[in-house]
């Protein structure tokens, strides 16, 4: 019985990782850059919702929509100001370092505006938990909503990329920027669109992360962001279903590691598994499937 409880907890944690990993993998797949500020965009999204819902008292749906808009604008602004001028830089390292810089910048701005004190996030999900086996197994509303959102977003993204013109343009840019430009594709516009979508996903991820784990500080996004990055690499970075599977598996491994081996060793186990997977399959679980790559 406790096995099932742990499994559900693992899926619950993993679905949050998966949701964040979708944004990571999307941006990496197309722009070929690691956006380390993704975790902090998540935090900004959560703070926006917190301000709208808890401070101003507006309904959750308004909070989520405003957060999506704020994060989309923020993501595009970051791309335009910080990443685009460096796209032609000789080494991709420059963009990577800039992304880390942006990450610290966002954290410190949030620190100035909201302070270091942690805030308790009111869940936007009002669904009652599903109780099975006489209440011994509890599936919270947040878990259900997060998993459903994950699946919907994953399918939506895949349809968007494979069926729409803009999506096809993204695929083309990801294959070869130069050739795409010669074919008349607006490369800068496509990459900006990618960041917009990635950041909108970050807003949703932020809201659901804080609904499930309701403690909000300026550093809330950074560690889940890194874990989600690990999940994306685990599943095969650039692959959308890979991010989903990677996230869920990472959550389950983390919880099982804590439960059955040692809670002191949880992180060592997670990263140990990652190393083993990458040794056996350097592109990640679904990394080989280039057709799926966005």
């Amino acid at each position, binding site marked *: 019985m406790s096995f099932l409880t742990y499994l559900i907890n693992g899926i619950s944690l993993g679905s949050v990782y998966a949701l964040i990993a979708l944004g990571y993998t999307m941006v990496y797949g197309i722009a070929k850059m690691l956006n380390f500020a993704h975790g902090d965009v998540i935090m900004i999204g959560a703070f926006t919702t917190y301000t709208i819902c808890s401070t101003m008292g507006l309904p959750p749906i308004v909070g989520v929509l405003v957060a999506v808009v704020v994060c989309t604008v923020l993501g595009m602004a970051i791309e335009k100001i910080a990443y685009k001028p460096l796209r032609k830089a000789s080494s991709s390292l420059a963009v990577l370092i800039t992304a880390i810089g942006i990450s610290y910048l966002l954290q410190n701005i949030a620190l100035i505006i909201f302070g270091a004190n942690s805030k308790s996030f009111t869940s936007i999900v009002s669904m009652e938990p599903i109780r099975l086996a006489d209440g011994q197994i509890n599936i919270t509303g947040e878990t259900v909503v997060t998993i459903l959102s994950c699946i919907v977003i994953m399918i939506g993204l895949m349809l968007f990329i494979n069926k729409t013109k803009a999506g096809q343009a993204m695929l083309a840019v990801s294959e070869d920027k130069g050739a795409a430009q010669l074919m008349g594709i607006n490369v800068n516009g496509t990459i900006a669109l990618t960041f917009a979508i990635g950041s909108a996903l970050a807003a949703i991820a932020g809201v659901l992360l804080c609904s499930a784990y309701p403690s909000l500080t300026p550093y809330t996004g950074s*560690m889940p962001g890194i874990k989600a990055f690990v999940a994306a690499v685990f599943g095969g970075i650039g692959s959308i279903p890979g991010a989903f599977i990677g996230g869920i598996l990472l959550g389950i491994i983390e919880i099982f590691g804590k439960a059955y081996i040692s*809670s002191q060793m*949880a*992180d060592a186990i997670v990263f140990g598994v990652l190393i083993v997977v990458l040794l056996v399959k350097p592109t990640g679980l679904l990394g080989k499937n280039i057709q799926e790559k966005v």
Partner: protein
Amino acid sequence: MKKLNKLVSVAVASAMVMAMMTGCGSDGNKSSGGTSDGNNGAATFKIGGIGPTTGGAALYGTNVQNAAQIAIDEINAAGGVNGYMLELNFQDDEHDAEKSVNAYNVLKDWGAQMIVGAVTSSPCIAVSEKTKEDNMFQITPSGSAVECVQYDNCFRICFSDPNQGEASAKYISENNLAEKVAIIYDSSDVYSSGIMESFVSGAASYNLNVVATEAFTADSKTDFSVQLQKAKDAGADMVFLPIYYQESSLILTQANAMGYAPTFFSCDGMDGILGVDNFDTKLAEGVMLLTPFAADAQDDLTVKFVSQYKERHNDTPNQFAADAYDAIYVIKAAIEKSGVTPDMSVSDICDKMKAAMLEINVEGLTTVGTGAGMSWNADGEVNKEPKAVKIVDGAYAGMD
């Protein structure tokens, strides 16, 4: 460089004078006269205070400053110590080790003969290096890191971080609060793991049954479901949380979601849980924490102190205020015991007072209701009975 130092000290001194004037009217004149020249043999003991009165930890420093001033005014109004008056000069360190050393230098120029502070641990350690050099008597109200009192001229009012663990075990055992205890601690944090270790060894000597010891790290502190599930499966009726309130708020939320309702017992890191913005304080109902002071206790000393504090500062004092209030009375007791006088050198005062510290026994706000006072050993660690409070209706309430 010298010029710069002078400039800084002038600026700090004038800021201090302004703070004194706004803080406590009549004392402002006295202290502004004493800034320029050093110890002129006047019949006052000059006590320097160091703590953060601005910045993130400002709440701690202002509580210490205000409470120390209240204690000093009380003592002076009652005729002083052996006929000598006490005078406080409190300097801001912004919870920064470097600034605390600057503050110490300013106080030395002012002629400070002993130091109350620093309020927070890392500045306190930095200041203790300096007081050690000068052999100046130092007592910290609240610096809880072990190294704060590593030198023999330094003492403290609060328990050290690890000693809180043993004190918690003792308190739980003596009050029969639990049969089986589970611990959830942060293995990546020295404060938390230090308390955990001393709790475990304390539990052995006080016959407490620790059924589960579960860890988390700074890198994985969002999900506590496994740790709670293991505590529940082990049948723990109490969960000991030697951690800070940010993580505690998540643990309380998750325990509630899974329908697990043990007694939660914590240390001073839990202080602040009720201040988390938007936190549902119902979740913290019944949580106990080891803290030396409950502002709503009904004994005479606490009532008198709290009402005076409220009257002067329109705010409720916290445990830092209580520690500081006691620190001043401890200084008084040590001066009386040692018979030092203000015209002695700083080093002589220190030598006599540190010898006296080992002999005195002082009752104060932080020992009220325990039936015993505070005494000190040569390591500078305080020996006193632990006290705890319980959260009832969203506020601290005394346990008895």
